[in-house]
């Protein structure tokens, strides 16, 4: 184990005190949303209690304070990602999904045309699929899928073929179903060699792995605050300043304009062009606190720790449930994060989750917004357990105990 102390993290998280069905909560659904540290909650409280005002257009003191908090969060995001262009490259959205819609409808609608290919993968979340289908319907682009191999990895054996006509590669940094960590830098080099750009779905990867935009050399990044210890209602979109400057507006309204007359409007420049209306201001206060909190833990430590947890869980699942429980995802921890999708023989994921709930264990049944991936493996759903920096080996203990009960019950 590293020096990182998950017990400390637990004491920072109020929700850890919850008792569910007579048992302490065993939260294994960080892949869906992470639990919120007190410091994040308090940052938002402080915002509402002392500084709340609409941003940007105020001259008075609290309006300046709110603006400073809001713009400070942009800087926190840029620092967190190592975005060399700084805060001018950060757009705040409502979630990772909106970030992808922004990418598709602004950049995509302008720079892609009939027959251009967007290359996604079969393991994508719907957030990185549906916007492209929508762009296909409106603009005639083609959506092509990198297949996933039987070992739950991107099948890049045919990549040269797949890259034909591709203008954008858009793949997830880490699968929210399989846990697979994709070779983003390699894909970025490949995309650029073919004259394409590359977008990364960082919803999982940014929350669980160190992310360095300089190392990754990608062109777009989308993620959500609520999966990285931050609040709901805030997403982040990043792209290089020069790309952003060429992107037309997306949502229209106040704040994103330079001028409006009875005849038309001219858009503002910079990230505000994509931030129509009053933004999620308080949420940016929470996001900054989350970034600071994660920086305090060290993302390297978090990643290393979650890897140990994952390795332990994978080993014990194989030992104790061999034949009865199949892990839908890589069997070892190489290039793999702490998301463990389970297919329990003879027990539907819904029922697995229901039985587990009786033990206070929170796992998520369903298709995890990755229906193409489910189809690929002939599944309708899995029961997914996923770790966060507050998870413990003892969480895995309870998971296994409850799983044993489910298997027996439906046996």
């Amino acid at each position, binding site marked *: 184990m590293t020096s990182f102390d998950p017990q400390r993290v637990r004491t920072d998280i109020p929700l850890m005190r919850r008792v569910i*069905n007579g048992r302490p909560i065993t939260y294994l659904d960080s892949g869906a949303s992470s639990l919120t540290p007190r410091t994040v909650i308090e940052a938002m409280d402080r915002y509402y209690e002392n500084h709340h005002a609409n941003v940007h257009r105020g001259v008075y003191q609290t309006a300046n304070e709110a603006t400073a908090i809001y713009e400070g969060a942009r800087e926190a995001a840029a620092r967190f990602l190592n975005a060399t262009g700084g805060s001018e490259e950060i757009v705040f959205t409502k979630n990772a999904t909106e970030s992808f819609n922004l990418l598709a409808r602004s950049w995509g609608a302008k720079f892609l045309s009939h027959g251009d290919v967007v290359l996604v993968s079969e393991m994508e979340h719907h957030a990185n699929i549906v916007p492209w289908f929508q762009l296909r319907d409106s603009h005639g682009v083609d959506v092509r899928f990198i297949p996933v191999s039987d070992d739950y990895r991107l099948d890049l054996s045919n990549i040269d073929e797949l890259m034909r006509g591709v203008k954008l590669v858009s793949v997830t940094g880490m699968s929210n179903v399989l846990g697979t960590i994709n070779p983003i830098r390699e894909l970025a080099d490949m995309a650029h060699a073919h004259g394409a750009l590359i977008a990364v779905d960082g919803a999982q990867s940014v929350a669980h792995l160190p992310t360095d935009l300089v190392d990754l050399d990608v062109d777009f990044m989308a993620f959500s605050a609520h999966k990285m210890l931050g609040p709901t209602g805030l997403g982040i979109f990043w792209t290089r300043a020069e790309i952003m400057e060429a992107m037309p507006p997306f949502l229209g309204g106040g704040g994103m304009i330079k001028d409006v007359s009875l005849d038309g409007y001219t858009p503002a420049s910079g990230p505000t062009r994509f931030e129509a209306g009053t933004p999620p201001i308080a949420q940016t206060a929470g996001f900054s606190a989350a970034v600071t909190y994660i920086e305090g833990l060290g993302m390297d430590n978090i990643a290393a720790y979650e890897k140990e947890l994952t390795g332990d869980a994978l080993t014990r699942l194989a030992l104790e449930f061999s034949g009865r429980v199949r892990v839908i995802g890589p069997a070892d921890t190489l290039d793999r994060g702490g998301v463990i999708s389970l297919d329990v023989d003879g*027990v*539907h994921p*819904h*029922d697995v989750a229901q*039985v587990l709930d009786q033990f206070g264990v929170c796992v998520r049944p369903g*298709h995890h917004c990755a*229906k193409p991936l489910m189809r690929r493996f002939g599944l*309708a759903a899995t029961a997914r357990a996923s770790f966060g920096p507050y998870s413990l080996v003892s969480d895995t203990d309870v998971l296994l105990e409850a799983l044993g009960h489910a298997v027996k019950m439906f046996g």
Partner: protein
Amino acid sequence: MANLDDLYREIILDHYRSPRNRGELAPPALRVEGFNPLCGDEIVVYVQVEDDVLADIKLTGHGCSISQSSSSLMSAAVKGKSLEQVRETITTFKQLMTVHESHLSDEGATPDEDADIRRLGELAALAGVVKFPVRIKCATLAWNTLIQALDELPAQA
């Protein structure tokens, strides 16, 4: 407090393990699909109606024990019944699934409800589902699909 035994009665597990009326029916039988988009459950209901009687019903699809047993129990309950009887059964079952929240904490049901539940026979095994509100959608998936099928029947001449 609701516990697992309220939900997973033996009859339910039995129908889940050995679903009745599983399979397909060839046209002119009607085929209607039902989805639960939130959890990925899918069901296909085939109904063969002859002279206002639901002469045959078959089901395919996949889902949790609740959705599967509910569809199996439903098929057993409606097969061979007149359409009017089928509609009555549907209504009674849907009532069972929408029992008012205020009853959730009570142990018993009202006398009226008791009478209804008895009329449901084996279907009454699903009564415990209402204590797990998120699973109600599982239990009603097949039924909503059947309703849709009945709605799509060619108008009677």
